[in-house]
């Protein structure tokens, strides 16, 4: 398998009023062709910033370090023309809020055909026919006529379908979906995920799904990266991580998902405290203050990322899988 996206030791710092704040602190990730990778974490964990850094969407106040390679090419070195030719054709993005990511003053058809005309060089009428086909593909009835409607005439779920159709229009190799279901009803969430599933399957599109919802991620992705305070704290195949989380943070995230089977807890467990704001000292584990298993060493030495299972890695001094083996 060949890697579509290789991110190596990515760092993003924001400089504001002379002070630097690290948002992403050394993230590495690899997405194979057709693979689905999920990035999960709380607000402020750096998952969206990572996605934006890959798309080169960060403002000029951001300093990006490390490397981002797309199909072997250095994305961070792209000039404006290269960037414009790459975006939309090889990589596309679906945003969180379909209410605001569609232009309210442009017909849906216009927004759909733009990419087709630009990247696939279709004529006006061909682009329109293709747009109608795409709209039908994402499950919008009467597609030909709906092309002339404005976004406000669509419901939230339908708008997100439109956004997915726009992203998939030029059959990119990779779609980055940044919280694509967060702004939607639970029932609609499932439909949108199904659609994303179907489309990426059909075109063998690799997907990076960014979400705070481990439930959404685990149902969709082959592989999961758990991010906390700008670092990947655990990474591995979905099944391994869900069945046997090694990092206390991943464990805590899993515990806070309500379950249907088994005994009902009186209260749904939540992770105490809140994620660190601003900079984290380099010589400690960022999660130490909220961790039930924290030891003195967690506050003096930053944990290195080590293999904790056959296919998983975690950045923790006391990975749970090892701890359990020891006590057993």
């Amino acid at each position, binding site marked *: 398998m060949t890697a579509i996206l290789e991110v190596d030791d990515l760092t993003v710092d924001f400089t504001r009023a002379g002070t630097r704040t690290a948002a992403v602190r050394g993230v590495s990730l690899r997405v194979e062709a057709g693979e689905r990778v999920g990035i999960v974490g709380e607000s402020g964990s750096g998952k969206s910033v990572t996605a934006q850094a890959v798309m080169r969407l960060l403002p000029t106040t951001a300093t990006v370090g490390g490397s981002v390679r797309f199909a072997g090419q250095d994305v961070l070195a792209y000039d404006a023309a290269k960037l*414009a030719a790459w975006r939309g054709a090889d990589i596309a*993005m679906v*945003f969180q*809020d379909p209410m*605001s990511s569609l232009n*309210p*003053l442009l017909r849906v058809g216009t927004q759909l055909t733009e990419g087709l005309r630009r990247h696939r060089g279709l004529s006006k009428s061909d682009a329109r026919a293709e747009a109608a086909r795409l709209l039908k593909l994402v499950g919008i009835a009467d597609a030909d006529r709906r092309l*002339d409607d*404005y976004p*406000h005439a669509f419901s939230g779920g339908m708008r997100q379908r439109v956004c997915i159709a726009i992203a998939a229009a030029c059959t990119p190799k990779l779609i980055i979906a940044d919280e694509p279901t967060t702004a939607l009803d639970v029932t609609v969430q499932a439909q949108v995920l199904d659609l994303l599933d179907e489309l990426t399957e059909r075109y063998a599109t690799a997907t990076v799904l960014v979400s705070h919802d481990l439930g959404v991620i685990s149902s969709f992705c082959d592989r999961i990266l758990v991010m906390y305070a700008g670092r990947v704290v655990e990474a591995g195949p979905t099944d391994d991580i869900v069945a046997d989380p090694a990092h206390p943070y991943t464990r805590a995230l899993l515990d806070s998902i309500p379950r249907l089977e088994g005994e009902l807890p009186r209260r749904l467990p939540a992770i105490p405290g809140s994620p660190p704001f601003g900079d984290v000292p380099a010589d400690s584990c960022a999660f130490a203050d909220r961790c039930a298993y924290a030891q003195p060493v967690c506050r003096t030495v930053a944990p290195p990322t080590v293999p904790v299972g056959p296919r998983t890695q975690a950045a923790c001094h006391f990975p749970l899988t090892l701890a359990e083996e020891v006590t057993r």
Partner: protein
Amino acid sequence: MTAPPIVTTPAPSGETVATEPAGMRRVLRSLRHDKPALISIVVLVLLALAAILAPLLASHPPLQTYPEGLAANGAPIGPGHGFPLGTDPNGRDVLARLLYGARVSLVIGILANGLATVLGVLVGLTAGYLGGWVETVLMRLTDVVMSFPILLFCIALISVTGPSERNVVIVIALIYWTTLARIIRSQVLSLREREFVVAARTMGLSHWRVMRRHLFPHLVPTIIVYATLGVASSILIEASLSFLGVGVPVPTPSWGQMIEQGKEYFQIAPWLLFAPGVCLILTVLAFNLAGDWLRDLLDPTAPERR
């Protein structure tokens, strides 16, 4: 009084109207419900016709001075007596001058103001969207032009290029774009952070296309309001220029000129001020109301009035 019938939107039957006639139908329907706009458009059409047909409508030539148009003491005479709107202090027919003046004033009001609007939008949009050094250069240029004393700047320019209608149009456009450029830039600054602009960029659209297709439609309401109000300002700037002798060359009538002249004779000959004044007010009002209507028409999210 009869109760208004409950209007329901017709169910979309398979064969609904195609796009083009639907657009035209929408225009007509909204006009039918917006009486002020309808009247405004009629007024604008009449004004344009009056300007075009001035030679047919005027009972006298506009530049001819009539000895019988002045009273024994040399004062202009009021409406009636063969001059429908009276005469001016030179004994010329006010109606004829008003009709011919409409040509100059409308051309200047629309052309100079239109040119200024185009310039202002281009500068504001480019500066606001691109940012960085482009913005710095364009906005400092705007500041510089704004800091010029308007009349001095015009006089300087006209004295180099020579007074003519064309030069007056260009000069007014050159000073009048700055305010709009600032307004547009400030709007673009907030618009460009909206997610749909980011989304458009992730589709690999060029800067030019993002500006033209994704940002410009959001600026249209502002542009319409500013441009319709600007018609009056442009006509009045031309008046000031004419008053100073650097506007439209002298015997050619324009409303601004007539207002300037009328101000001095206001107490003995109020019609000199009222005739062009009322025309100017009507023009500006009509442009504004028609502009409001156009703005609503172009907003796809505005509820359709019944």
